């Protein structure tokens, strides 16, 4: 049977070659590249080994559209036109489109999406790792409805677990790895309603999970949620806790190493012992503004090196949390610079691990109300103006395209947000301002938007999942977001 297959493949190849020889376009690079891709696909073999390690990369708010913009940005930063650039995750062999809706939200927030990936079931917006029968903020009603997480499952099987985010480590996506809460905003005790005894605040849950041996490494922002209001941290900012508890000291008392700056971070011993790194009082800085903090790639590398000391393997969740925040701000530049930092972390993780035993999954939790204008010529700067197509060449002309109002427009726009051209002090009327490419390319430029809002919104549009390693081929077609958990769980248990 195997011989018959090989024989028929050989016929297919020879047919392809014969066809190519007859075509006038056979020497075009587009043609030969695609022919090479056919051979790569035909030769591809699925990896059906058991996954020792699982790395789940999530860029918050990095749907298909945002990912497209990051690709062009990275390619243009590298000196090219942008669109033909290949991000490290885009070279992964397997891909699916992911439906991100939740049990009550056509548009999700990051809490139920993290839940779906960490527990295998969808749930309500605002809640983390609690089933859909419970109402938001119903502390009394949550008892018995907590879900078991992938971190808890693999920890019982002897694996180590790490969680990294450039947002607060108590923010929804990282909290999905270790916390169970009926409200994502209960990041410290001051937000927990009086009389709520069925759950602790999210920061306290992280420290409990570290103490329990479920979480081995936690790196991110959010220091303020771990220290009392009367305590001032190393950067002069006070804590938020009103129960007097210093959770950082509690973690240290349980043997965790602690770091709060890039200097501390460089001194960490990466031997598998517990590590807590809290590099900002709130979110870590955008990559464009980063100073005194490790990069996402540096945190990724340190975590992998430490977790690799466990011969049973590890689960590591890594979030680029601020792609989302810059989209909320309507600021294309920071969305894309944080997206590039995300890709750099993926490349490094791929380098430090073995495809034979490590399943790497790259996805997003949801998309944003980001959109793209046309018809731009190739090389139009992704954060700048949309220039006309050159009918006689490849790169765009020097002529910016204009709307019917006679004004140029940028490639990226937002359907809503702070960049709205409708202004409150003009009774919600307005018009698009004049705009030069230099103004649009400024790192603080806010792309134009339509509906006025104090914060641009998520959208329910699909995101992609790209994967490599054991059982990555189980990602195919259009999937529900909770299916991601099932692939991870299957891969680590495969016989």
């Amino acid at each position: 049977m195997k011989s018959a297959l090989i024989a028929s493949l050989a016929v297919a190849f020879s047919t392809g070659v014969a066809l190519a020889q007859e075509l006038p376009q056979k020497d075009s690079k587009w043609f030969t590249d695609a022919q090479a891709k056919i051979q790569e696909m035909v030769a591809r073999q699925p990896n059906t080994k058991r996954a020792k390690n699982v790395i789940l990369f999530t860029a918050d708010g990095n749907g298909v559209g945002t990912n497209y913009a990051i690709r062009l940005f990275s390619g243009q930063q590298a000196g090219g036109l942008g669109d033909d650039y290949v991000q490290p995750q885009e070279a992964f062999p397997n891909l699916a489109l992911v439906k991100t809706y939740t049990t009550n939200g056509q548009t999700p927030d990051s809490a139920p999406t993290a839940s779906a990936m960490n527990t295998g079931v969808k749930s309500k917006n605002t809640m983390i790792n609690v089933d859909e029968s419970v109402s938001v903020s119903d502390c009394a009603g949550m008892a018995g409805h907590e879900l078991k997480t992938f971190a808890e499952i693999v920890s019982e099987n002897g694996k180590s677990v790490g969680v990294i985010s450039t947002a607060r480590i108590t923010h929804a996506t990282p909290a999905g790895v270790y916390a169970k809460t009926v409200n994502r905003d209960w990041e410290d005790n001051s937000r927990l309603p009086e009389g709520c005894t069925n759950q602790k605040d999210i920061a306290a849950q992280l420290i409990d999970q570290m103490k329990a041996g479920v979480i081995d490494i936690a790196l991110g922002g959010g220091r303020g949620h771990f220290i009392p209001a009367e305590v001032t941290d190393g950067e002069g900012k006070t804590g938020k806790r009103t129960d007097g508890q210093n959770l950082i000291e509690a973690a240290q008392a349980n043997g965790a190493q602690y770091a709060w700056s890039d200097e501390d971070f460089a001194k960490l011993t990466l031997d598998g012992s517990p590590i807590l790194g809290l590099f900002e009082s709130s979110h870590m800085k955008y990559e464009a503004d980063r100073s005194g903090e490790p990069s996402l790639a540096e945190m990724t590398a340190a975590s992998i090196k430490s977790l690799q000391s466990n011969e049973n393997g590890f689960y590591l969740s890594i979030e680029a949390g601020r792609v989302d925040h810059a989209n909320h701000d309507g600021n294309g530049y920071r969305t894309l610079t944080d997206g590039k930092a995300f890709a750099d972390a993926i490349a490094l993780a791929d380098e430090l691990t073995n495809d034979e035993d490590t399943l790497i999954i790259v996805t997003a939790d949801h998309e944003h109300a980001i959109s793209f204008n046309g018809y731009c010529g190739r090389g139009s700067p992704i954060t700048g103006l949309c220039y006309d197509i050159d009918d006689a060449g490849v790169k765009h002309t020097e002529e910016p395209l204009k709307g019917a109002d006679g004004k140029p427009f940028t490639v990226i726009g937002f359907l809503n947000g702070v960049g709205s051209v409708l202004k409150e002090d003009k009774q919600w009327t307005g018009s698009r301002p004049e705009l030069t490419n230099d103004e649009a390319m400024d790192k603080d430029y806010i792309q134009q938007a339509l509906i006025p809002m104090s914060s641009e919104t998520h959208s329910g549009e699909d995101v992609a999942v790209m994967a490599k390693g054991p059982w990555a081929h189980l990602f195919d077609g259009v999937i529900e977001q909770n299916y991601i958990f099932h692939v991870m769980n299957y891969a680590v248990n495969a016989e």
Partner: protein
Amino acid sequence: MDRRHFLLAALGLPAIAAAAPWPARADDTIRLRDLYNKDLSFSGYALEREGERVSISGYMAPPLKAESHFFVLTNRPLAVCPFCETEAQWPDDILAVYCKRVIEVISFNTRIVTRGKLELGTFTDPETGFVSRVRLADAVYERA
């Protein structure tokens, strides 16, 4: 050595500060971000112009209280994201603006230019408790 380089050297600032791009605008208006270096230390421009009247562009954050002489200028429109923040968190790179008159609120997403006397150093507003590192005093402002 010109005055700026002399000042930087005298203050013992790192070489990177001296190499930072000098804000150049025909009308002498700078952006708020030009007051800070990346590590949030004051820029050479801020140090040199302390005590002088300067023009700075940015956005008026929604005022903390009505009938105020005071507002906060931000680099980008201050967005409070319902799914990102449990409460409004001020960015580090802001400017407290104390005006000559009670302020007329301008939409938080409309760029403005404000002009006033540049003051550096930590100050706690006795009325609001707002702590600022840099301020404009006797300020006026208009839409950019």
